[in-house]
């Protein structure tokens, strides 16, 4: 019930964040996660960042996901 995507935060300004999802960029809201900042990774649902993660940890999570997921 909760489709989500993981991306890298490129920039945050005035509560709006630009997130890069493997080459596709989208502007989303950081209203639910004011701690969002450039360089962190974001979990995005319905156009909102709902959680953030440090890059090192996030890369491991992404690798885990990709091990059994194609698309």
């Amino acid at each position, binding site marked *: 019930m909760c489709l989500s995507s993981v991306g890298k935060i490129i920039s945050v300004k005035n509560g709006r964040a630009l997130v890069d999802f493997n080459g596709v960029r989208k502007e989303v809201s950081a209203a639910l996660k004011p701690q969002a900042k450039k360089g962190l990774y974001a979990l995005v649902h319905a156009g909102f960042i709902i959680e953030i993660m440090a890059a090192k940890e996030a890369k491991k999570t992404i690798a*885990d996901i990709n091990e059994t997921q194609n698309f």
Partner: protein
Amino acid sequence: MKRKIFNSQRPATEAAAQRPFLSPSALRGEGRANSRNLPLNIMEVCGTHTNAIAKSGLKTLLAGRINFISGPGCPVCVSAQSDIDNMLALALKPGVITATFGDMLRVPGAKMSLKDAQTAGADVRIIYSPLQAVDIAQKNPNKKIIFLAVGFETTAPAAAAAVLAARKLKLKNFYVYTALKRVAPAVELILKEKNNIDGFLLPGNVSVITGLKEFDFISEKYAKPAAAAGFSAKEILAALAKLGKPKTQNAYAWVKAGGNKTALRLTAKVFTPAAGSWRGFGKIEQSALELKEEFAAFDAKKVFKIRAQKERKTKCRCALILKGKIPPQKCPYFARVCTPQKPLGPCMVSQEGACAAAYNNMG
């Protein structure tokens, strides 16, 4: 079968074949409240899990070991018929732009779906974020924009943010019809009744918002194991491996203790829990999120004077399926009368519905 031409690299298959993530103890059923032989009955609460388990092939891979039971975590599937009929009535009003997530478009109401309404001339627009609905309201001051808020705790904060944005912009033409729900009360209802569920896969993103405490009751009150899971096969397997002793655990890297406090705060600012009407479950206390009184001007139910309706009886057996009492295949209409082309109810319409998943992966 000649394989030479294929350059297929399948390290994942070899890894999965060794099944490192399914702990022997979980498979032997140790620590379960009632000891029985395999297969274990695991309820995946979340519709996105239902979809992922089917599409990845996990369901087939674990057949005989794990019997996956789809739970009520498909917000489209559990939408009450009255809610759907109300949404349609609003969509057909002149001067209304209905902003909805794509998931709701084909759900059948009494006479038609939102898609049919669109064909009949209603202005129905698909949005990806609730903020787009606010944007549409700003750009169309002469129209009434009604955002259909359907979802669980993951989506509620986004809807709350949209209402607050609309208030900040002093919009007078933005309304929300809320069919937002809380997952835990429905899960508790299932546990209260007689069931043969051995463990639960918890919705990952709901847990991100609420924190795991929301689901502690599963192990503490009902002595069943539960684990929050991500949505890839590996993450789901990791969660399954944790199901042994009756504990509520986390296997989803994104869940933080305490959940997302900002999201919870915004939700509580805009919405208040109230009795909810669930397809198949009837009324569940504290299970729906309604707009607070101070946001009455944005409440489509109040502004358009929606009257409480009696639930229309339909043939649909979604009720039993959502509770995990019968699998889709045991519904007399499944695949015979009720198909994705001609669905009798939302379990067959929604991409995540148990019936749709079963039908689409049928041999």
